[in-house]
């Protein structure tokens, strides 16, 4: 796993702050590299879409809360990256190139706003089952799987199990009680009762869910 900045929210176990609290907290200037900021923004832009669709698909308010938190976090990162970029510009050439970076950052933020709009569909009364019905027809789908205590996967690392290369299922987030791990890295240990949010096709899902429910001894 690559070195990540101390501020990054990816790949570690954490309790998500309430998004409302986060939204109204003071912005504090913390020097961070533009590269680190942009990497995190790109990662959020991809994760947040999957989470937003899965919130709608499973009609799950908790996942929707995570999406709101990430959306707020994205606003902050966008603010930080603008400040850092302005301080970095010295010449006209610098400014031209940095403008490109800011545009990509802005696009990542637009994506997170779109994800916010998707979960607002959930908040309305009577969205009805039409969205889950539609989303279930996609080739690549989102699935939720709970790890049973009988599964061989308990106390094993994702990388050792080679989950993604064996089944094609990408684990996009893990929920452990009140804690979340986004984009869990290869050295994350799976535990009994973890909920995994995964993305992949039916075939991969059927293998992985059998394995995580303890019905299959190993992933082949």
């Amino acid at each position, binding site marked *: 796993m*690559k070195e990540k900045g101390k501020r990054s929210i*990816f*790949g570690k176990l954490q309790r998500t702050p309430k998004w409302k609290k986060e939204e109204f907290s003071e912005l504090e200037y913390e020097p961070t590299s*533009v*590269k*680190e900021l*942009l*990497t995190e923004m*790109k*990662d959020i*832009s*991809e994760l947040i*879409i999957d989470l937003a*669709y899965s919130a709608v698909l499973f009609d799950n308010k908790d996942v929707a809360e995570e999406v709101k938190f990430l959306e707020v976090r994205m606003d902050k990162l966008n603010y930080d990256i603008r400040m850092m970029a302005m301080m970095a510009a010295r010449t006209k050439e610098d400014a*031209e*190139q940095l*403008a*490109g*970076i800011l*545009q*990509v950052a*802005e*696009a*990542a933020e*637009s*994506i997170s*706003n*779109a*994800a916010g*709009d*998707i979960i607002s*569909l959930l908040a309305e009364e*009577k*969205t*009805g089952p*039409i*969205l889950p019905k*539609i*989303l279930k*027809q*996609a*080739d*690549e789908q989102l699935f939720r799987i709970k790890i049973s205590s009988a599964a061989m996967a308990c106390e094993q690392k994702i*990388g050792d199990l*080679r989950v*993604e*290369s*064996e*089944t*094609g*299922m*990408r684990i996009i987030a893990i929920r452990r009680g009140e804690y979340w791990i986004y*984009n869990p*890295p*290869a050295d994350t240990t799976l535990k009994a009762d973890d909920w995994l949010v995964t993305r*992949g*096709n039916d*075939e*991969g899902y059927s*293998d992985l869910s059998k394995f995580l429910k303890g019905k299959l001894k190993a992933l082949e």
Partner: protein
Amino acid sequence: MKKKTVEDIVLEIKDKSELMVDLAYSSLIYDNKTIAKEVYDLEDLIDNLYHNIQKKTLEGVRNKDLSIDDALTVLRLAECSEKIADAALEIIDVELRDVELHPILKMSIRESDVVFTKVHVEPNSILCNKTLGKLKLGSETGMLIIAMRHHDKWLYGPNKNTMIDPGDILFAKGPEDGEKHLIELASGIANEI
């Protein structure tokens, strides 16, 4: 041909908009204007689909196939996907501009958790002359082929029936260990999927 239902169109908009984001980020990594231009074409397609779905849902409401609530939900979802597509367009706009890309752009996208990779299929690779549906690269290596260059043509979002030929170039995304496996398969070093 089977007529497309409202559901089919929403899904198509959703899938294509996600594909556009993937392609947009990879156009930056490879500093590749051809991929970037393709995102433009996909945007046209999405605009058409969006127009189409607005008409279809309204028709559905008139014919009482869809409730008003359902129709609204579908339209809103399509609108969100449309916004995502617009964001992808903003990204490739940076690539298509006549300004050299800042090196940090490439670096930060490379450092991300999901890797994009480009592989060249050698004549002795076992991938040759097989369809993607048969190879099941997605479930076997974890790598999803998002685009490929096939006989001087670009294919975006290839499907199960797409055949891989020697000399094709595949653009894929997935985990780091999958990348290595895919490179070995394409170059003929590994013979087992």
